[in-house]
């Protein structure tokens, strides 16, 4: 949701083969590694994406075929020539949804988001120490709540400090909704501005807002 850089944005793709190749998780990892460090050998990429050399070679071949990757040179190692790869665009790529099938789009967004959400949910469960209680009640705002809580206040306070997981339904005017959405984004932006120090423990954050009730899902 950030400003698109005006100067030479990502290259526009026009073939659905290219679009489909770009939608594959492993292609993305390989291309991501090459965007970061162009002129890498297959074994360097394999190390970076933590996959077997064979798998990486298979995908590189595909990416060469559709033209997302190029051979940019060779390096001599022992007597052998080692090919070096580079992305066909240093600014990345973009393509319209219409280049893929509609079913693919939904699958894809689910494929991108659901593994993350499942991981979040599984970590929530890991941090629970005492037995949880399920509660169904109507809160003071007239909203039905389906909650998990521990009996002891101490355990609840501990969990509240560490974990947040809430879903609600709201009824708003479109002006209220836009204001609400802006403030959620502001929260997300502030969170993303935290320094990225990979030596610290990792936390996942998710903020979602959609113009629809999902209670009947």
């Amino acid at each position: 949701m950030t400003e698109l850089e005006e100067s030479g944005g990502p290259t526009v793709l026009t073939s659905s083969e290219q679009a489909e190749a770009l939608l594959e998780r492993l292609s993305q990892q390989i291309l991501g590694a090459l965007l970061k460090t162009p002129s890498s050998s297959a074994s360097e990429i394999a190390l970076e994406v933590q996959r077997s050399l064979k798998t990486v070679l298979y995908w590189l071949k595909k990416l060469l075929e559709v033209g997302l990757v190029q051979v940019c040179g060779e390096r001599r190692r022992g007597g052998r020539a080692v090919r070096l790869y580079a992305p066909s665009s240093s600014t990345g790529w973009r393509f319209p949804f219409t280049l893929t099938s509609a079913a693919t789009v939904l699958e894809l967004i689910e494929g991108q988001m659901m593994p993350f959400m499942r991981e979040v949910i599984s970590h929530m469960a890991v941090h629970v120490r005492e037995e949880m209680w399920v509660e169904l009640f109507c809160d003071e705002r007239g909203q039905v709540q389906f909650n998990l809580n521990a009996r002891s206040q101490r355990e609840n306070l501990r969990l509240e400090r560490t974990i947040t997981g809430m879903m609600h339904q709201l009824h708003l005017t479109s002006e209220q909704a836009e204001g609400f959405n802006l403030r959620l984004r502001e929260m997300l932006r502030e969170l993303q501005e935290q320094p990225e120090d990979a030596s610290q423990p990792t936390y996942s954050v998710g903020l979602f807002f959609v113009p629809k009730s999902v209670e009947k899902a």
Partner: protein
Amino acid sequence: MTEPPAVPAPVSVTNAAQVSALLERVNQEILGALLKNPSSASELAKVLERPLKAVIYRLETLLEVGLVEVAGERKRGGRAIRIFAPSSSVGWCFPFSLTPAATLLELLERDMVPRLRAMLRASVERIRDEMWFYFWPHPEFKTAAFEMRMPDEARFEHVMRDTTLGIATLYLTETEAIKLNLELRERYFSLMREHTDSSLKAYSVAVFFTPVSGDKL
């Protein structure tokens, strides 16, 4: 994991049939509506936008297990219409050990995954024909990022004015994490306290924050 329940505390349930009925999403909707307003079956069907037949079937089950009672009758034409009310006006609760779920994770997934999926679906269904995929070395990220956006930035902002799908990974010390999480909760609750009028359009909102260090799934 969620906001502590409003007092008085929900009634504790120990009966297995009641527990499994309470875990069903449709029953939760029906009981939720009844907690707000005792109603007839056709009123419920209208509020929940579900077929009358399905609502009556569920009401019979809920009557049988004792979560719902007939609170009275209303005469309509020559016919008597039953008015249903929840057996507890403060809701219900039960320990996790009484649920058929083998793990807390299973219970959480069952509750959250369908709704998250519906949120993703809602976020794309209106807009997918106009959307573009970007895979590029995002100026703000250190690695290549996969994003949904539009070449026309103003149009994108307009389309996304009431939609946010944001996830982020943060690296934090425990103290920072607690501070951020509590802040996030506080801001979320202050947003939630805003006026909710059920005649207005429904929106869904969700927030997650969890440590993901340690064993990955």
